[in-house]
């Protein structure tokens, strides 16, 4: 850590010199709490026994001096100065029973806690950075062997697809002249008839789309009609307790199976 507090390691240095070096280094501080922590060192006491009143005075003196030297302080520092000035007046005046909010002592104790906590985190950070570090004290394997991803492809097909494929082949010749004679509307009755016959063969979950009649899935118009009719038919059959329907999520494929 680059430590501005090193300035204060040599405690014999005169207060005035310290204060001046503080001003010179003001940009090196990480905010008002950091500045307060640095100032607190001049009290040479345990942070738990710190005089918050004295600390507030030190801080306000610092801000005053900065003003005299026409050093621009960031807003954070000025907000803290205002708060400390308020705290100081509360600490000096006898407690006002009418006053709302926390007591001056509570506020002071909280500030002391914040300083102690920040100090503790700094020490923890230093201990952390001093640990055995990978790449400095310990080392990982120099030659790492890549784990080869072996992609294994499995193919799936359902019984429905198998049967449909066979039916498609066997009826190809008969089928063609008729396909184009049909209108592009697949009725609910037709879908119901079809589903009732088919469902007996589809023991396991099968996607609803596999129940679309042959020749109705390529033309969007026909597919829409067939899908709607098949879906409506499946709802009807579910209502009659013949089948079960499931869909894992919105817009996911709908599957059905025979109710057993």
């Amino acid at each position: 850590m680059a430590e501005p507090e090193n300035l204060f390691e040599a405690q014999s240095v005169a207060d005035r010199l310290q204060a001046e070096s503080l001003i010179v280094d003001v940009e090196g501080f990480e905010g008002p709490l950091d500045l307060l922590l640095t100032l607190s060192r001049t009290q040479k006491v345990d942070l738990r026994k710190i005089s918050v009143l004295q600390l507030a005075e030190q801080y306000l003196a610092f801000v005053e001096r900065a003003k005299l030297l026409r050093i621009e302080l960031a807003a954070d520092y000025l907000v803290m100065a205002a708060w400390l000035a308020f705290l100081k007046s509360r600490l000096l005046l006898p407690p006002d029973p009418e006053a709302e909010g926390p007591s001056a002592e509570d506020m002071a104790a909280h500030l002391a806690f914040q300083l102690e906590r920040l100090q503790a985190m700094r020490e923890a950070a230093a201990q952390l950075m001093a640990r055995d570090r990978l790449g400095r004290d310990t080392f990982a394997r120099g030659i790492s062997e890549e784990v080869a991803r072996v992609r294994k492809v499995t193919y799936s097909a359902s019984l429905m697809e198998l049967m449909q494929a066979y039916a498609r082949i066997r009826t190809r010749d008969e089928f063609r002249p008729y396909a184009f004679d049909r209108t592009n509307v697949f009725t609910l009755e037709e879908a119901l008839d079809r589903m009732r016959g088919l469902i007996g063969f589809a023991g396991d979950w099968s996607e609803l789309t596999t129940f679309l009649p042959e020749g109705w899935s390529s033309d969007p118009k026909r597919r829409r009609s067939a899908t709607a009719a098949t879906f409506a038919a499946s709802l009807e059959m579910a209502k009659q307790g013949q089948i079960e329907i499931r869909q894992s999520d919105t817009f996911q494929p709908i599957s059905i199976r025979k109710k057993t």
Partner: protein
Amino acid sequence: MNDAPEPAEEKEETLFAAPPIAEQERMVEAILFASSEPVSLREMEERMPHGCDPAEALVHLRKRYEGRGVRVVKVGDAWAIRTAPDLGFLMQKETVEERKLSRAAIETLAIIAYHQPVTRAEIEEIRGVAVSRGTIDQLLEMEWIRFGRRRMTPGRPVTFVVTQGFLDHFSLESARDLPGLKELRAAGLLDSRPLPGASEEGDEDEDEPQVGQSELFED
């Protein structure tokens, strides 16, 4: 680590004397482990404290790794730690990807299931298109079909039949459980009404597979 107890007077020389060989072995081990490339004896010597003998340390280290999951091996004139060759399979990770069977494959499979034992020429006749070698190979590889008996016809062509794996996948007890054409039609799987006058022909077709199957499945 320190196998031989060191005499007291040597303690003072520690600064100048080479570390004990066990310690040198540790060093060589760490160097070989962390280096991104095989390390030569000379490089080891340069990095180790003065007076070290990496060659000797290596003899010990090599012995220590005998039969272990990794070995100390010589690569050219340098040294490295490598996985034991019999454990190479651990460096692979299998990912399974499921794909839909192609239309050609499922049609071919269906024909084999319904008509087994069936020759390639017969499959092509039924499908009306040539069956690619790849499709058959794929089905063989998936172990859904296998070679059946050769047909006792000129050229003695091989036949294909479906396997137990196929039956398992489709939850069938036997290929005879596959619905026949009549049932498929009754079930509405065959949409089209047969062409007038074509019905008889269709009927004949329906029986055909049964003949084939009975031939195969006769027990």
